[in-house]
């Protein structure tokens, strides 16, 4: 992403919008600019901001005039007045940033929008997580902190040492050169993304060991890690995970509840 220097009027609206804090105002040039190393190509500024198509010279003139008379204009905070935000053509490996940061982009590897798979949201149809099994979604960089693949690799390597088999349809698994060791391809390790999810499943008796390992490794990473676990319920809607998680000292309030209304054929 870049800011068109001919169009930018340095209103500063886009500065607060950027989830990564990658946009700043150059006080000498009086224009906004994007720090390319911090930008994760999430398109929040380009897609999320509304646009006017005002003449930049006119807007700069009005802003100067208001400044002279010490008048303050209170513009809408999510508007770029001159449509100065412009996407770049992305090439490998930078294109990976957008694939993992812009939720509107569909991952080629999964066919799903966003950063993971369908998890247990379609479990009533896929039976991906069966009775006695637990699915994990370990998400890096959320909320709004960001992560580089080298940090994700520390976790995937640690999990691989426990004999974890990663979900084959997950986009991070797709980035691995060796799924047995959790090795992620070298050319993306320094790429920064908004977030990524590692997915796998184990038997329910392995939950304590896996969660404690995730907790340990998370402390060594330069980001935050959000963890979700899922399971199939019994006929009365009960979940064996309640006892396991409570026993391990995890508190849980929020979650997703699959109502079992899906059918294999519509």
């Amino acid at each position: 992403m870049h800011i068109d220097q001919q169009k930018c009027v340095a209103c500063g609206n886009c500065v607060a919008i950027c989830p990564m804090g990658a946009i700043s105002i150059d006080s000498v040039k009086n224009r906004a600019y994007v720090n390319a190393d911090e930008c994760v190509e999430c398109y929040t500024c380009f897609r999320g901001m509304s646009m006017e198509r005002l003449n930049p010279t006119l807007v700069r003139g009005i802003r100067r005039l208001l400044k002279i008379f010490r008048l303050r204009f209170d513009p809408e905070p999510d508007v770029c007045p001159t449509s100065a935000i412009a996407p770049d053509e992305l090439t490998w490996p930078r294109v990976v940033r957008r694939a993992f940061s812009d939720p509107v982009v569909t991952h080629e590897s999964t066919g799903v929008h966003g950063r993971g798979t369908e998890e247990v949201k379609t479990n009533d149809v896929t039976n991906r997580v069966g009775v006695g099994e637990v699915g994990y979604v370990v998400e890096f960089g959320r909320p709004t902190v960001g992560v580089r693949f080298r940090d994700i690799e520390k976790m995937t390597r640690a999990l691989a040492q426990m004999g974890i088999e990663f979900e084959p349809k997950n986009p991070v698994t797709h980035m691995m050169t060796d799924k047995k060791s959790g090795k992620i391809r070298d050319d993306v390790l320094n790429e920064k993304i908004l977030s990524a999810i590692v997915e796998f499943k184990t038997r329910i008796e392995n939950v304590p060991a896996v969660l404690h390992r995730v907790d340990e490794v998370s402390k060594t990473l330069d980001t935050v890690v959000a963890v979700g676990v899922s399971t199939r319920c019994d006929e009365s809607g009960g979940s064996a995970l309640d006892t396991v998680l409570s026993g391990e000292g995890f508190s849980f309030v929020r979650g997703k509840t699959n109502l079992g209304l899906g059918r294999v054929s519509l």
Partner: protein
Amino acid sequence: MTNTLHRYGSSDSFNDDYIVFAIPARGINDKDSVEKQRRFLEIARKHHPVNMGDASHGAIFRPSKELNPTVHWRRELAPDFDTVVNCVSCPSTVAAVFNDPDHVVAFIKELKKAGLGLSINISAALDKAQECARRAGLERHSVEYSLGFFGQTDRMADRQTLELATMCGHGMLSFNFVRKLVEWVKQGRRSPQQASATLARFCSCGVFNPARACRLFEEAKK
């Protein structure tokens, strides 16, 4: 995509936060799902949702690429339900957000009758979601728990900012922008409704809850 799983807040904070979504399973029942997704949204609309969206095409609050300068004095805040329903064109996740469990129960009962065959999930406090399911005559099939945040949690924002920012789980709401709007509401420069609509426009999936956001902005004013 765990974009609604890790919302931040206490159990009470989720009393007015229920997301019901429909999703086809890729390669299994996604063929001919478009009409079912549209039907889901049409049914949802009858039950007073506070937001609604299609992950591929946007929500009832959306940005505009052709504004004129009057927008700075008179911004349209009315939700656009028709565009969401009419724009569904490919297999995707469609969602409706409610702030009242009675509306959720009525919606699920009607979905059950409609027999769409898509997977239907409720993202909410787990006990409240189970209660809604039971009131609608269903037992839950599978459940996913949010265990919260691990690692460098000191890099996260304060509670108030997180409660608002995590309502877009894809991270489209920056902490700085949320703080800016909280300050503007406190200063009387924007109303809670205006600030909520502004945030909602950044959530293209339509899972942001403007009613909860309004309440949180009102609380911030006190």
